[in-house]
């Protein structure tokens, strides 16, 4: 039997966007239910549970399962891409056969707020200065990129990405923001953290997502077409932003190269790129790190709405974290969209017979990365 690994079920929580009254855990559970239903696999067959945000104990208890393999790796929004690699390793090693990966976050409507451990270096050495959220950290990285590669062309690129992503969201009925956006709208949106306008920043929503990943043996008899994992890699090179080795060169450079290598593929083989867009800048610098273009050439790469519907580089076709949904740890939704595009299930935004998708998650303060390459 082949040792290939496939994603065989995906699902969001019942409602996403602004969902008052549902907790993060409920979003986990609904998404788990919907992903299992999509796969046709019963909860009784799930023997691996991978999650982030909550401990797998908390999620497993809610779901009523007793897994033989558990993993609560939380390295921020990239966690659910990293879980692909972990699930693959665990299944191949025989620790489990059917893995459920869940995410849920009431980013907008949660009634309680998680508090950072005050003993952590970030709480001690960065938070007292007001670096207490992602915009503060990522905007500093963007300022350095602008300094090195030119402010105006960087600004243009960020506007291109924001506008192109919104065009995709307009084709996605589940997207939170679907109003038309022009470059003027982008430039006129208020400052959040210079150099970031409001429209450089991801939205904040309530959402859950889940996928089911298993062996070729289990995948062959299921109701949906298996989507194969060809390559997967993970890493992180810092936690707090001052310790990032190079603000313009995230660790995706390492994970991307390894994922391509494992898949035996090159950039021209990729039909869809799902790139974590916590901010427009995240996309710009990640495309460079992944080697789709050289450092500093991102602005030309995304110019002229190249990543918009009809453009020749299909990227973030769900509408991304910028316009579709961003519950806090968005990486899960990159997986969902890639799988649905490869299956041909995405309606008005469907690409023409895509065969391969690259997913790249970024977590923390440009700290962690997970890259995966999927194919039909």
């Amino acid at each position, binding site marked *: 039997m082949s040792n290939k690994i496939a994603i065989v079920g995906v699902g969001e929580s019942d409602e996403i966007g602004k969902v008052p009254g549902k907790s993060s855990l409920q979003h986990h559970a609904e998404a788990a239910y919907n992903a299992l239903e999509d796969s046709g696999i019963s909860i009784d067959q799930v023997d691996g549970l991978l999650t982030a945000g909550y401990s797998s104990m908390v999620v497993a208890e809610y779901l009523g399962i007793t897994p033989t393999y558990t993993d609560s790796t939380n390295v921020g929004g990239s966690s659910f891409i990293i879980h692909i690699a972990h699930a693959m390793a665990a299944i191949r090693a025989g620790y489990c056969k059917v893995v459920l990966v869940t995410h849920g976050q009431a980013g907008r409507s949660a009634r309680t707020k998680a508090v950072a451990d005050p003993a952590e270096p970030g709480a001690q050495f960065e938070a*007292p200065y007001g670096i207490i959220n992602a915009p503060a950290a990522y905007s*500093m990285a963007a300022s*350095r990129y602008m300094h090195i590669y030119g402010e105006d062309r960087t600004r243009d690129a960020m506007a291109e990405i924001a506008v192109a992503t919104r065009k995709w969201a307009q084709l996605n009925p589940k997207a939170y923001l679907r109003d038309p956006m022009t470059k003027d709208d982008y430039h006129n949106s208020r*400052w*959040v953290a*210079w150099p*970031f306008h409001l429209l450089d920043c991801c939205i904040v929503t309530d959402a859950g997502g889940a996928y089911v990943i298993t062996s070729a043996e289990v995948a062959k008899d299921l109701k949906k077409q298996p989507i194969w994992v060809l390559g997967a890699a993970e890493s992180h090179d810092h936690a707090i932003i001052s310790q990032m080795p190079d*603000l313009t060169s995230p660790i995706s450079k390492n994970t991307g190269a390894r994922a391509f290598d494992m898949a035996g593929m090159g950039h021209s083989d990729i039909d869809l790129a799902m790139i974590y867009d916590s901010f427009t800048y995240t996309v710009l610098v990640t495309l460079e790190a992944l080697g789709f273009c050289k450092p500093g050439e991102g602005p030309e790469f995304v110019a002229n709405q190249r990543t918009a519907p009809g453009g020749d580089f299909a990227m973030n076709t769900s509408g991304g974290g910028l316009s579709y949904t961003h519950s806090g740890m968005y990486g899960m939704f990159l997986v969902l969209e890639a799988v649905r595009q490869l299956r041909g299930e995405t309606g008005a935004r469907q690409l023409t017979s895509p065969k391969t998708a690259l997913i790249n998650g970024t977590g923390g303060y440009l700290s962690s990365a997970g890259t995966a390459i999927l194919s039909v």
Partner: protein
Amino acid sequence: MNNYKKIIPIPQGESEFYWNKTSQEQLWLRKCNRCSEAYFYPRDISPCCFSRDTEWTQSSGRGRLYAFSIIYRSPNQGFQEEAPFIVAIIELEEGPRMTSNIVGVDTPSPDKLRIGMPVTVVFDKITDELSLPKFILAKS
């Protein structure tokens, strides 16, 4: 002092010396004796060589602006009341980078700052026990 609404750091065992020194208006770094590299944040085992042979060394307090952002919106009320304010990564003369605020710039705007500008440490006494090292643009 009691009405300080922003985040107050809680010194840990390894960093008590650092915070004691900032309250005396001095900036000290931890240094690895194996490779002679100073590093930030202060901890007993060095990140460069994973060496236990480390010691404290005083920083000149001079550095350069490495990256910055002007914060207009903060989820913390104390910070929001002071917006817009400047957060920055400073590259110290001794090598390490640390985050801080650039202070003393009236009505912060990007044209008043340039990456690479020389900066000098100042100390902001936020409680009886604690002072935060911050930076001003140096006269060049």
